[in-house]
Structures are given as structure tokens and as C-alpha cells.
């Protein structure tokens, strides 16, 4: 099959969505298909730009190329997934969240603009009208499927996939640091982790990996760490190699992953593959599909006191941490999350 994968690219940004798209392309090629990534540049401010992007996508014709049909397209991200095609399947990573679940939340940029409400309504309307053009709708997670149902009244099937290089994750010694690898941005709540760290009673150490979306945010985090007097217990690795990442996962005491309503969250799965317990929050979304409190990790309210208590618990109770990590590893094996299964469903 000739398969085009539709996504959007925020220039000079790399995160879970980019890894997801590339992993899907790799998996399609491994399965013997001809696969091409179609990435549309995306800028979301001022809000009218969102509609400009959407309109541009709607005007594209990817029905065939060089006289040969494109047999199937798989849409991943807004607004690229609205490029028309008669054999389109959606595997939605997330919608334009500030128009939906993040609307009126502190990080919602749309609300700051006078035209924000109208643009939001246009986005909501076009999603409801245009998404059903697809022959099937899959969601990245149960969380994303729930949002589609809640805001657009559309049914979709959650379809889990493994993180990139899943087979390479390994477990190691139960080290003296918690690990949080992620983009550094408000939604991932590194600030909350720093605040919690300041409230721990044990000599907990944190290792963050990842690049800030905006350099100013990195500065803010560093300043915050100084203000909380935890700088000596925090390490900022920035972007690290895959090898280093695997080693950091393998050697940590546990993984902290407390984002706000994450769509899916590779970090959860990567921690489980590394047999590490995960501390997450009751409002963290995707991770809650895999982490149970007292089972595969600890689930706490999204406040510094509660997270600090969980960090102290895992720091203190090494046996529980190891058992929770093993349960996580067993759970991910049970779920049968693998690419052949994903490809079979998307191309059915």
C-alpha cells in the first residue's frame, strides 16, 4: 500500500508527536508498505492563523501522486488530519486542545484574543463536521477518545502503540534519583515537581531531561529551583542521546510524570518497560490508563504536598518501588502493545 501519514510540524520543536509520526512511518515500512510523512507547518497565533492553516489543508489534494493513487492516509494531528482523502483513517494524537479541554484554563492562549471565542467555535464546528469524513477514527488513548466524545460527540477507538525502541528498554539498579524526561513547558508541570522537591523530608534528587519549548521557561525553572533552595538536588540534562536516556531510566529510583491531562504519555510506558514505578497525578490524563495507585506506581492530587509525600514514600520504601516496577513491566506485556497490531488496525 502507498500510505501517507498526515501531521503538523511546529518548526524547530520535537516531542512525542514527532516521535509518534516517525515511528508509525518506520513501522509501516517494516510491514512492507510505501510510507510518506506529510508534515504541514503549523502556527497557532494570532488565532486567525489557525484557520488559515486549516483552510490551506482543506485545499490540498493528496488523492494520488505521479498518476498513482495514494491508497490510504492516516491523519494524526490538527489541522493536517483535515486534508481530504477518500480513504482516510484518523489516529488522533490530540485535537487543538486550547479550543477544547484547555479552553478557559490558565494556559489557554485563545482566550487572550478578542477573536478567540469565534475562532474556537469555528474549530469546534469544523471538527464536528469534518472528522466524520474519515472511514474510521482511532484515538491515541482512552483519554483522547473521551475528549472527542465529550466535545464533538464522536465515537473513536483507543489504539495504543509502543514507545520508540521499546525493545531496548531495560531495568537496572534502584538508584538515588527520580527521573523526569520531557519537553520543559507549563503543561508538563516541572514547576510543580520543583515545588514538591522543596517539601520532601528525604534527600530526594531529581534529574530532568529535555529541551524547553522556550528558553525563558528554562530560566524560570532555574530561578525557581534557586528560590526553593533545591538547585543542588536538581540536574538539568537538556537533550540527551537515546543511549543515555535508556541508562537514566534503567538506573533511577522511579519516574515522576505529573503533566496536566496528557494525551497518552510515552514516559509512562517507557518507565514501565524499564520496570520503574511512576508517580503521576489524578488529573494527568493518559498515564492514568496505565498507572494504578499502589499497583504500578503512586497517584496523587496535583499539589506539591501530595507529590512530596509520594516522592518520600518511594525514596524510603525501596521494596515497594521494585515490586511496583515489576508489576508495570508485567502489565505492559499483558496489554500486547505492538506495532503490527497498530498497523493491522489502521490499514484494515
Amino acid at each position, binding site marked *: 500500500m502507498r500510505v501517507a501519514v498526515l501531521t503538523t510540524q511546529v518548526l524547530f520543536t520535537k516531542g512525542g508527536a514527532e516521535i509518534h509520526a516517525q515511528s508509525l512511518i518506520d513501522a509501516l515500512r517494516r510491514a512492507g508498505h510505501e510510507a510518506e510523512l506529510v508534515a504541514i507547518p503549523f502556527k497557532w497565533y494570532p488565532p486567525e492563523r489557525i*484557520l*488559515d492553516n*486549516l*483552510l490551506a489543508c482543506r485545499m490540498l489534494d493528496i488523492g494520488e501522486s505521479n498518476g498513482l493513487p495514494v491508497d490510504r492516509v492516516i491523519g494524526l494531528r490538527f489541522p493536517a488530519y483535515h486534508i481530504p482523502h477518500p480513504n482516510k483513517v484518523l489516529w488522533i494524537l490530540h485535537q487543538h486542545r486550547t479550543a477544547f479541554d484547555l479552553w478557559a484554563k490558565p494556559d489557554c492562549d485563545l482566550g487572550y484574543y478578542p477573536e478567540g471565542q469565534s475562532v474556537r*467555535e*469555528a474549530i469546534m*464546528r*469544523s471538527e464536528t463536521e469534518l472528522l466524520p469524513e474519515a472511514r474510521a477514527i482511532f484515538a491515541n488513548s482512552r483519554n483522547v477518545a473521551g475528549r472527542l466524545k465529550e466535545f464533538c460527540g464522536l465515537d473513536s477507538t483507543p489504539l495504543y502503540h509502543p514507545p520508540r525502541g521499546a525493545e531496548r528498554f531495560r531495568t537496572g539498579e534502584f538508584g538515588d534519583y527520580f527521573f523526569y524526561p520531557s519537553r520543559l513547558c507549563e503543561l508538563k508541570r516541572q514547576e510543580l515537581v520543583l515545588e514538591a522537591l522543596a517539601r520532601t523530608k528525604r534527600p530526594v534528587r531529581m534529574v530532568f531531561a529535555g529541551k524547553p519549548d522556550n528558553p525563558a521557561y528554562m530560566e524560570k525553572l532555574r530561578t525557581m529551583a534557586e528560590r526553593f533552595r533545591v538547585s543542588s538536588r536538581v540536574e538539568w540534562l537538556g537533550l540527551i542521546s537515546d543511549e543515555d536516556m535508556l541508562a537514566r531510566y534503567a538506573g533511577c529510583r522511579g519516574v515522576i510524570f505529573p503533566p496536566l491531562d496528557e494525551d497518552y504519555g510515552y514516559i509512562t510506558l517507557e518507565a514501565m518497560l524499564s520496570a520503574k514505578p511512576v508517580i503521576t497525578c489524578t488529573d494527568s490524563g493518559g498515564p492514568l490508563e496505565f498507572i494504578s495507585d499502589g499497583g504500578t506506581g503512586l497517584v496523587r492530587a496535583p499539589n506539591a504536598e501530595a507529590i512530596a509525600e509520594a516522592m518520600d514514600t518511594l525514596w524510603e520504601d525501596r521494596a515497594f518501588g521494585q515490586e511496583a516496577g515489576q508489576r508495570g513491566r508485567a502489565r505492559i506485556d499483558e496489554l500486547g502493545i505492538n506495532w503490527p497490531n497498530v498497523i493491522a488496525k489502521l490499514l484494515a
Partner: protein
Amino acid sequence: MKVNLFSPLPPARTDIAQCVARMLPALSAALDLTLWTDSDDVDARTRRMAKVRRYDADNMDWRALSYADLNIYSIGNDARFHAPIMEIARRVPGLVILHDVCVHELAYYTIERRPAGRERYLALLEREGAEAVELGKTWLEGRANLRDLAQKYPLTWWPLEGALGVVSHNASALLEAVPNLRIPLLDTPLPWLPNAELPAPRGRTLSSGAPLELLVCGHLNSPSRRLSQILDAIAAYPRPERLLLHVAGSVRDEKALRRKIHTLCLGRNVRLHGYLSEEALGRLMDRVHMALNLRWPSVGEASGAQLRFWNHSLPSIATRTGWYERQPEGSLLLLDPERELKELHRHWDAALNNYDELVEYGLRGRMLLEERHCAEAFAAALLDFAPIVKRYQGSMCAPSLARRTGQALGGLRLGDEALSTALAKRLAGQIAAISGTSREDA
């Protein structure tokens, strides 16, 4: 439902502020209401009944508007009160309560204060045709009267551009002025007090030999209120000693008015009260025998003053035009504007001969007030209307999206008209699909 209402508020000297004050209990009970004003001066009662926020159109935090279920703009023709509201309404689409059908003065004074205001004003008039532009130029050169221009070109459509919907208390006049209205219209009577707050209906008597006390009130600056003609009619009346006119309200040129009263020897027939408080005006309405609520030429507005007269069961004379003409028979004494003086005399004769018969007009008006103008009914109608207008929120993006697309298309310099047209049609179809507007509109 979370609602922002932008309106002049008491004690602002405008009927629209009083209108808001009257319907406030009903609105506050039905809605999560925030009142927005550009004035620091808001009375204590209003502050007790709803959240009041001050705004500066040049320095807004738009989030409060973005996250509301509905933004409502109370629009009248007086630019002092409504120009700042229009600055907001033009940027955040909402529901317009249009109190005046003629909003030419509002349009002029709102636009005039912007950079290149005069050019923009003339560009606006271009939509009315070349003659309107020429007349506009004569006004800008000081050779014409804005009021005359407004009579000819009321520009009713202007505050409705970019609105989600419109509430009118005089829908037939609105539709006459904007026959191709393309937004939802809620035709609902001008709201008055909740029925529970109405004073008891009251009868009136005219003692034998006592003068018939007449009242004109409100904003009397416009010639359309006929104050000068009323004075002429009193002077020409065969028994002027039987008439006593109370003038309560703002008059632009009080000196000229006093001169006229003096010239007509009406010193003993006219009392000038100036602008009265609500309470003082209410006491005056209870005292007089007849209100004169003339409008000619009419600009089609529903009359808050008329509701006030009915509230006091006060018989009143109005011009046979617009909203007044459509009121149920027996609630108003009407006069033909072409025979104004004669008909005033006829009504005064009738009142002096048998005042008891006229009292019924005031009482029937009072019943009408209860039946049609109840504030709770208005709040309920607004609640029902809100989801209808909200459906159009997304379509508000269509004009700017079409404009940007047109600019991009123009930049391509395709040259081939057929090719350009085909591309424009496809783009229009997609804009319509995205915004939920019709393909033709897109």
C-alpha cells in the same frame, strides 16, 4: 449562563441606563450577569444587584469576554454612551440590543475619533451610495446638518455588522431599515419593571376650572420631540389659561426656549423643571393630567418614556407613526403629524370637556405594560435566544478569513479570470465549511 452586558448604567442620563436598572432584578435572577461600564459613577443599587466591572476599550483583558457564554451590547444613538461600547462590539461578536433604529450619529462620532476618522466615515457612507458620500462631505465642511443626514441614512446596519444577533423592541422599523437582515432577530417588547414592582394603577381627576396639566419630559434636544410646536399650539389655543405645561428634561438651548416662551406670552402656562431625578419625575407624573410624547419625524425607536407614562397610568398623546401607531387601540391618543396643532387642540378640548373618558387611556396603557413589557418575560426570551445566536459564533471568522484569502489570491496575479474564479469558488466553499456560513456569504 454567564453573560456580560455592556451598557450605560444609572445614574447616566439616558433612558437606556434606566431601562437596564428596571430589568436588572429579572436579569440577575436568570443569569450570571456582569455589567460593564466605562464610567466610575455607578449607583449603589446597581452595584448591589450585579457585578459591575469598568472597562477601557483601549486596554482590555479579553478573557472575561472570551469565556462568557454571551456578550450583550446595549446600543443607542448617543455616542457619549455608546461609542466605547461599539469599540468592544466591533471586536468581540455578541448580541446587540438595538434601542435606536437611526444610529448615524453614533457611527459618525465613533469613527471620527479614530485615525483618519473622516475618511473612514466617508468610506462607510460609500455603502449608501455616491449621494450619501456627497452629503457626508457637505456635513464635514459644515454646510449641512448631521441630523438631516441621519434621517436620510440611519445606518442601522452598522452596529449589526459582526453581531451574532439583534434584539429589537421595534422589529418592523428595524426590518424596514435593514430589509436584508442576515442575523437572528429577537422581536420583544421594551422591558419594564417586574410586574411585582409596579405601583398600583391609579385613577385621576380634573377639578372643574383647574388647568389641564401637561407634561413633556426626557431628552428634548431633538426637534423631533416637537417642543417648539407644542408651545405654538398652546399659544394658539382659544383657552390658554386652561393649560399648564411642565417641561422636565434636557434642553439644548434653554435661553432660546425661554425667549420663545416670553415672546408667546406663555410665562404663566409653562414651567421648566430641568432634568429631574426618577423620584421627582415620578411625583410629577402622578400630578399631571396628560403626557405629550410626540415624535416627528420619527426615527422608529420604541419609547421608554411611553412605558413610564403607562407605569403611572397617565393618559398620553403620541404621533401616529412607527412604534406608537402599532400600539393597541385605546392605549394612546394619537395625532396626525400633518395636522398636529389642530389635533392637539381637539385632544385638549376633549380632555377639558370630559377628562374621565381620557383616564381610561392611561389605565389601558397600564394593563398593556403588565401584559407585554414584563422584565421577567424579557429575561426568559433572552435565555431562549442565546443558544440560537451562539450558533453563529464560528461564522464570525468568515469575513476576515475571506479577506486574507482574497489578499493571498490577489497576490498570485493569476491573470486568467476563469482560473481565478474557479479557485475563488473552491476557497469560498471551504471557508463556508470551516466557518459554518453560507457559500454565498463566504
